[in-house]
């Protein structure tokens, strides 16, 4: 039985990939992402944490872009290029892990709320709606301030405040999956809650999860940089902390446009890549959207 299902899934996956490859913007986003991730991963082979240290800054202060320093230097002579490269590791790590946490919470709550009708599901939705109205940035800032700024707490603060929209999406999908006859068949054959949710519902919501994870990473990276800018940082160089530095040391008044521009462009490029890739995924997975061309 499983082999039939797996063959069918493999086939669907192949079809999905060929559909996705036709989405030009999505492919472009995917390529940018791949480059960014590979660069972040191989960074330790070429540079180390010293590039972010204020004492080892080699260049002149506020040096504009030149051949030596392609993206200029900051207030203590550190290379913006190397800092942005090293900082991509923190930004991407937090982005991915926070999105993962958010998606996992959203998935569990969403499937549970859709699967268990009655008071349990209703209570879960109540909680979801409650979290949904909380202003997420403000809440994340409070959590980060209270728990102290480490990479871990920033991830928790972002994950805990952003899961409700995923939960709602997954719940709706779960409800529609569970209305199908084969679920009834499975129940008649003695399938329990665990069997139904993991064997039937999960594979059906997985494509949606993939699309929303992609979008979630984009927003988590923005949130991380915003939190870092607002001072709730992990004390590690990320694009957000670099921009914080540019603000604190008055890069605007110094005319050091490169200090403000470069980290921001990094964020923008990665976030847009995730967004277009996520939208392309949605378009491929949701034929209704594809038709509307939205």
């Amino acid at each position, binding site marked *: 039985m499983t082999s039939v299902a797996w063959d069918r899934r493999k086939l669907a996956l192949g079809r999905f990939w060929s559909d996705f490859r036709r989405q030009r913007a999505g492919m472009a986003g995917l390529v940018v992402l791949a480059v960014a991730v590979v660069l972040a991963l191989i960074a330790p082979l070429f540079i180390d944490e010293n590039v972010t240290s204020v004492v080892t800054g080699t260049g002149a202060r506020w040096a504009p872009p030149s051949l030596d320093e392609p993206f200029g230097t900051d207030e203590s002579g550190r290379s913006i290029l190397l800092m942005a490269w090293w900082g991509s590791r923190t930004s991407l790590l937090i982005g991915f892990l926070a999105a993962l946490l958010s998606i996992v919470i959203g998935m569990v709550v969403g499937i549970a709320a859709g699967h268990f009708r009655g008071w349990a599901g209703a209570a879960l939705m109540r909680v979801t709606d*409650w979290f949904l109205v909380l202003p997420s940035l*403000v809440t994340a*800032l409070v959590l980060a301030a*209270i728990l102290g700024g480490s990479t871990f707490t920033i991830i928790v603060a972002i994950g805990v405040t952003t899961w409700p929209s995923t939960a709602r999406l997954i719940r709706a999908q779960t409800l529609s999956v569970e209305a199908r006859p084969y679920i009834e068949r499975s129940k008649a054959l003695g399938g329990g809650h665990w069997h139904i949710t993991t064997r039937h519902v999960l594979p059906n919501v997985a494509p949606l999860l993939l699309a929303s994870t992609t979008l979630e990473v984009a927003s988590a990276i923005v949130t991380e940089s*915003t939190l870092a*800018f607002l001072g709730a940082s992990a004390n590690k160089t990320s694009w957000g902390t670099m921009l914080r530095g*540019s603000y604190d040391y008055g890069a605007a008044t110094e005319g050091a446009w490169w200090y403000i521009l470069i980290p921001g462009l990094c964020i923008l490029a990665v976030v847009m890549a995730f967004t277009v890739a996520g939208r392309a995924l949605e378009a491929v997975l949701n034929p209704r959207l594809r038709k509307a061309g939205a």
Partner: protein
Amino acid sequence: MTAPLDAAEPAVQAAGPAGRDEERPSGHGTLRYALSKAGGALFSIAMVIVGTFFVFRLLPGDPVRNLAQGRNMTPAQLDLERHRLGLDKPLIDQFVDFVGATLRLDLGTSYEYKRPVLDLIGERFGPTLLLAGTGLIIAVSLGIWQGTRAGWRRGSRFDRFSTGLSLVLWSVPTFWLGLLLLMVFGVGIGPIPGLFPTRGIESVDAPDGFAYLLDVGMHMVLPCLTLVAVVYAQYLLVMRSSLLEEVGQDYVTTARAKGLRDDEVRRRHAVPNALLPTVTLVFMRIGFVVGGAVTVETIYSWPGLGQLFYEAVRVPDFTLMQGTFMLITVSVIIMNTLADVVYHWLDPRVRSA
């Protein structure tokens, strides 16, 4: 919603799936709905108060020492402070005190300012309302206008431009856009001189009367621009997609078949229906605007609630942080509930569902 619906063309009902329009005249259902929503909102607010109490007691370490921030204090002073704050009582008593005080709107005294939190909030409320309100009005009008134009002529150059632009603006972090605008228009770059002030709400030597308003207006340009740019993209996208939903509906075809001009079909039939989801979204996502306001106020030192909250986080001044957090959250919950009820009242499609 200004465009009156043609009496001969009950467009809204025609679009409804069930079309149970006989319930429309009675406001009874709406009232009951409003009451149940208000109950839900009260519950949410109660949860915010309870949640705030426990989250702020999760603080690692001794709250008194946290408050003192490493200032030297003798053990006797610490005990006195602990007693003054009621921290020597059992947790349950502290909880009861906290809830009681919050319900009496006693949000405690800011450690940093040595003043009641409620007074501080009161002072900062006006500027935030001015900035966020103006920004929201501009963002909503611009988003609806541009979204309508884009959605009505789908695939046109304007449409592609708008969608692309909103995608970029959606990906831009608010604070980065603020920094860029600050650099280009505030400080000036290259040949461009600094055009607008970048700090605060008024000049130090602010003049009186009309000139004062102008001064405040000038200070508002950059913060407002930043807020609008970041917020309006989502309104545009939602207006566009909800208009796209309407364009295919039968009543639009009917309106066209009647011989109405294209402009009239759009303005009097399609747009009023497409507006509803958009307007609801405006209020549903008010929390997003609040987040944007915190960032924008921080960058431009706008003396509003967002900046107050930011300062509380920076210091950190936990009493102030707790008070502003509760106020912001409760306002957002109230706005959401209002939007829900108004939507229900305006749109029979939701009521019959």
